[in-house]
């Protein structure tokens, strides 16, 4: 397909005049049948990377996605774009519902599933019976991720790619260091030579990077309050616990005249849908969220992202702040840090990594598997793969070490007096072009919100008073007179 044909389809099917950076290269590579690893920053327009080929190629597009909430976002996005043949195999389906979906796989163009579901033998059998255009591995860095995000079934995707006939594989991620890139391909059984890598810089020059060091949790709240009152426009505040997200949301709602809501994976699907859409509709200004929020959020005018707790690593941080400023306007990322915050992360990741004693006990069946929770899943996976206890212990040692190293990098970012952006870019093996007043608060360039000239949002006036039910009914169901 030549360039003109590509642009014709882009215009006719999707209504765009031009591709965003990186999109065309990925789409061409995929249409040429090359397995492709696309590393494009958040907001680069990932959906089009499989939606475009799906329009041209025969067969079903399988998308493997790590999180239920992310899948729901993506399914929603496609439906919003007018795609009807979209479905999702998920753990919230009953056995019967899942069977019904599996029996009708042919009738869908897009099938979303988690690595756990898609690698089940009976699902693979169904996949072998249908024509598959491409297999998309979304958030492909998860294949290589350790710590809380580690999902053993990602390692089975390699077998899936070998045993299920498909025309092409597309791996998508927003952030991957050189090491992770290599690791993704190894874990998926692909060779570097056979894979086309398309990479755009992780740099988001329109996001000012700032770290605010405080002494206590109370100070954090004070700083946070100053921030949300000082910046106009929508913002996301990330937390590492659901409880804190909920508490701070409630507190901010009381302290400000803004509309604030919490969002996390523990909320039911209806509530999540409502909160998400209120935010997209500008009915909410602030979301207090866990990392469950945002992977699929398509909102251009998020002006700021605050981290109330330190994230696990720079990859996650870059992903999460990337939700700000998709419209290209000046935006702001602030990480609030109190001494010792990193221990929360250390504890979180240590909790997910079993000790040597637990591994030994598990492998010799001396421990009640039900007591272990998710860890037991992981250990069982290794047991099924016939690994010896020493090998498993060794894996976990390495994992712990890697977590520490990643956290050290993040602390380096927090503690530096130099340019923060250059630390991020170095981490991803890129070079900074220039540090300036809108770059970051390093090199003595303290954050001054007024000087940043963040775009004033034309906020919808949100009515806090409920209208009568009659008027609500009238608005819901528009009857022409």
């Amino acid at each position, binding site marked *: 397909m030549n360039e003109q044909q590509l642009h014709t389809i882009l215009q006719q099917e999707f209504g765009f005049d031009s591709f965003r950076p990186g999109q065309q290269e990925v789409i061409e590579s995929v249409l040429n049948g090359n397995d492709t690893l696309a590393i494009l920053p958040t907001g680069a327009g990932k959906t089009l990377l499989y939606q475009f080929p799906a329009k041209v190629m025969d067969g079903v597009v399988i998308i493997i996605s790590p999180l239920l909430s992310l899948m729901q976002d993506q399914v929603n996005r496609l439906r919003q774009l007018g795609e009807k043949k979209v479905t999702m195999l998920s753990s919230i389906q009953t056995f019967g519902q899942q069977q019904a979906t599996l029996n009708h796989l042919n009738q869908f163009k897009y099938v979303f599933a988690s690595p756990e579901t898609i690698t089940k033998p009976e699902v693979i059998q169904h996949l072998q019976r249908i024509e598959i255009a491409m297999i998309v591995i979304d958030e492909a860095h998860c294949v290589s991720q350790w710590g809380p995000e580690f999902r053993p079934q990602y390692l089975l995707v390699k077998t899936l790619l070998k045993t299920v006939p498909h025309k092409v594989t597309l791996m998508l991620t927003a952030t991957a260091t050189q090491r992770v890139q290599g690791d993704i391909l190894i874990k998926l059984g692909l060779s570097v030579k056979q894979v086309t890598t398309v990479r755009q810089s992780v740099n988001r020059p329109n996001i000012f990077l700032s770290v605010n060091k405080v002494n206590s949790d109370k100070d954090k709240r004070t700083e946070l309050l100053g921030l949300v009152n000082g910046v106009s426009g929508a913002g996301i505040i990330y937390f590492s616990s659901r409880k804190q997200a909920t508490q701070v949301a409630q507190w901010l709602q009381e302290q400000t005249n803004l509309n604030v809501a919490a969002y996390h994976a523990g909320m039911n699907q*209806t509530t999540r849908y409502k909160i998400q859409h209120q935010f997209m509709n500008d009915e909410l200004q602030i979301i207090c969220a866990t990392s469950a929020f945002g992977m699929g959020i398509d909102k251009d005018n998020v002006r700021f992202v605050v981290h109330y707790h330190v994230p696990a690593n720079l990859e996650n941080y870059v992903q999460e702040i990337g939700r700000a400023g998709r419209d290209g306007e000046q935006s702001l990322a602030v990480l609030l840090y109190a001494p010792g915050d990193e221990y929360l992360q250390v504890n979180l990741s240590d909790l997910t990594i079993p000790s040597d004693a637990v591994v030994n006990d598990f492998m010799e069946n001396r421990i009640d598997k039900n007591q272990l929770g998710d860890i037991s899943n992981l250990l069982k996976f290794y047991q099924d793969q016939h690994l010896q206890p020493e090998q498993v212990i060794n894996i976990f040692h390495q994992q712990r070490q890697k977590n520490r190293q990643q956290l050290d990098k993040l602390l380096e970012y927090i503690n530096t007096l130099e340019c923060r952006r250059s630390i991020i870019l170095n981490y991803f093996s890129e070079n900074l072009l220039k540090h300036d007043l809108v770059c970051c608060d390093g090199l003595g360039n303290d954050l001054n919100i007024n000087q940043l000239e963040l775009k004033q949002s034309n906020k919808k006036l949100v009515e806090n008073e409920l209208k009568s039910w009659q008027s609500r009914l009238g*608005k819901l169901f528009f009857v022409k007179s």
Partner: protein
Amino acid sequence: METYLITLLSNQQPRRQRVIENILMNRRTLTTLFWGSRYGILSWLGSNRQLEREHFDAMLKQMKQDGLIEIKNQFILLTVQGQACKQQFSEQHYVPRHEQQYLKYNLNAGWPRLLLAGQVVSEFSYENIKYAPISFEDHELRYVKQWFNNNKSEQFVKNFKQEVNEFLLTLSETEAQFFTELLVGHDSPGLSIDQLTTKLSIPLIDGEVMATDLMVGIMEFAHCHQTLLKQLFQDLKLESPISHSGYITYQLFQDQYSIEQIEQMRHLKLSTIREHLLEAAIFDGVNFPYDRLLTDRQLKALAVQYTGNIDDWQFKMVTDDKNLDFFDFRLYQIMRGMQNE
């Protein structure tokens, strides 16, 4: 739902802690159903499926610390203070109106169905076809799509709105407002129960109970007079609150087949068939044909053997068939319990 727990307790009848927990979580063992029926709390069956034991036990611990309950050998009894608190609770909180009808419907599916249908009608009324439906479930999407296609006409939006309006007129202003604000529509995603209760200054638990109650309310309403709504909820009306397999057994029994015949027809164990019939008796109450299973002679013997408070009866073996003896005992216990009501 948390503080509604107090309404499930009594100051006269010590109630088993695990039975209450199992009722809320929908763990339908025969023992749970029997005692749930004795306590008069069967309509709460499955009302809190996500309940965690830790959380449930913590609530009881708190109530105990507050002097509202006593717990002995896992039996809970309201104290004088607890009884007063229970009475006060009903005065201060939302009192469900349709509790007796809860078991007639597939409660969990009601709101997702109505929200999706409301959204489809709303978007249609604004002539918008590009939107993200609130449901992800293929079955739900198919059902509502078919309902929509079967009824689409020039008057469709008007009729739907009219039917909802008629239902709303049967509610209080607050209830009607609560109900409409929950709905999802074009360019207006609606409010969550949490947000809505804050705006209306009512406790969150009241909102949760109100949402369930109003859903049953609209399904009852729909089945009585309406067409569009009736079709929308048609498959959510349960044939019976009895488990599916139990229902089949009971139907055969009502068609005059004997237990032994049913055992052969269904290739099930005798004890399973007996369990099915006990379950049917619990749900069907006085309408159950007890006389087909307990002869006059048996009834007379049982009446001599078991006296006093029904809850305190201790099972005794009379023949060498323990399963049969227990079946007769429990059936008699259910029957007497129903007669006393």
